[in-house]
């Protein structure tokens, strides 16, 4: 991170080599075009450089920090472009069950993520995906499904805690 903070090109390249692909992938899924995903990826690395002094490894992993920046920037862009939070993607298909055979260099993070998501039921995966990829708030999900808001919040929390526990034993950077 010191290298990134200093604008060190090698540090930027190292981060790029490791995280550009999942960031670009997330941008493509959320924003729907390669052009928008490319802009998002650039913005994420620039934001990471600007915020590098505030990154605290005691508060979370670098990979999580970068992906949170990416997701927040993408959601902000969607809100700015549409004026409202709108669902953009569907849904459970976005959560792959297995590594595909043609991935010559699967990321360690992806392997661990897929294993962690195996702790969820299909209904929990769908619920989290509707919020994370679809941009639906708990209130919107409650209205769509005709169930109490408190129930949706509880289910979201329960699902995230399951993933968190499944992640606890993983050795992510």
């Amino acid at each position, binding site marked *: 991170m010191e290298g990134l903070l*200093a604008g060190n*090109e090698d540090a930027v390249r190292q981060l*790029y080599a490791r995280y550009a692909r999942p960031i670009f992938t997330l941008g493509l899924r959320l924003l729907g075009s390669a052009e928008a995903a490319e802009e998002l990826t650039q913005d994420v690395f620039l934001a990471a450089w600007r915020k590098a002094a505030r990154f605290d490894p005691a508060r979370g992993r670098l990979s999580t920090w970068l992906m949170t920046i990416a997701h927040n920037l993408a959601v902000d862009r969607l809100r700015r472009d549409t004026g409202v939070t709108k669902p953009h993607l569907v849904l459970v298909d976005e959560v792959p069950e297995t590594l595909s055979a043609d991935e010559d260099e699967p990321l360690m993070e992806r392997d661990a993520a897929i294993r962690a998501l195996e702790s969820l039921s299909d209904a929990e995966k769908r619920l989290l995906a509707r919020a994370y990829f679809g941009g639906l708030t*708990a209130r919107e999900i409650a209205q769509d499904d005709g169930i109490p808001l408190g129930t949706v*919040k509880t289910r979201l929390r329960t699902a995230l805690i399951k993933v968190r526990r499944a992640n606890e034993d993983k050795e992510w950077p």
Partner: protein
Amino acid sequence: MAVTCLGVRELLPELAIGVLAPAERDEVERHLRWCAGCRKEASELGQAAATFAFALAPVPVPNGLGEKIVERVRHVAGRPGTPRRARTTAASIVAAMVAVASLGWAAAMAGRAERFEDRANRAEQQGAEALETFVRAIQNVVPPGQDLPEEQFHLGPLAPTAEGQGGGGAVLQLVSPNFLDFSMVIVNGLGPQAANNLPYRVQLLNAAGQVLRAGRITELDADGGAEVFHQFANKDLSGYSTVQVLDADGVVVLTGGIERNPSGP
């Protein structure tokens, strides 16, 4: 909204997923600044939510994207040809200032403020304290005679206006022929109603009345404080020596000017 740990924790899953409404997100993030317990839970839930992003089947990135990013970071970090050591020094100064300001100064000033009954004295003290913070940070990082001459740094206090909510602050500018100019503004002690007047914006003015935007304050910490850093890619800050902080209604709440640099008396 009443911000309690119970209320905040109810909202943390949506914060982690990124779908919390902006107003609620601001409230929660303000709470997280001082509540370690909720902050820990937010971090863990955020990590869980990010798992979804990493589980996506990766797609190839476009050719040349890496070089574009390196070029953008290079451009922002320093002009082409700038010695790397100097860029590092500049970035380290900013990092040190941000760290000092966010870790120690706000808390120190919150305790100090209680000992001053008079608002003007309190504001003056806050401004002086911020100046000392800047000076110490720069002196620690850039010994005299190194790459960034001290005379390129300019400091000044910010004082409350009659229309404002009290408080104070300070501004640091780098005005350099060799590096991207930047301004950093620290505010603190804005009154309890200040959060209702967000977002604040920082602007710089020159003698001709020309205005440069120098950033926005979208949230305040528990002490009514915030810091704003803005780097100017294509603008020389020479002459922009008046600083104003305006609330959401355009009312100037803090104002001040560049008075001296760290090597001054």
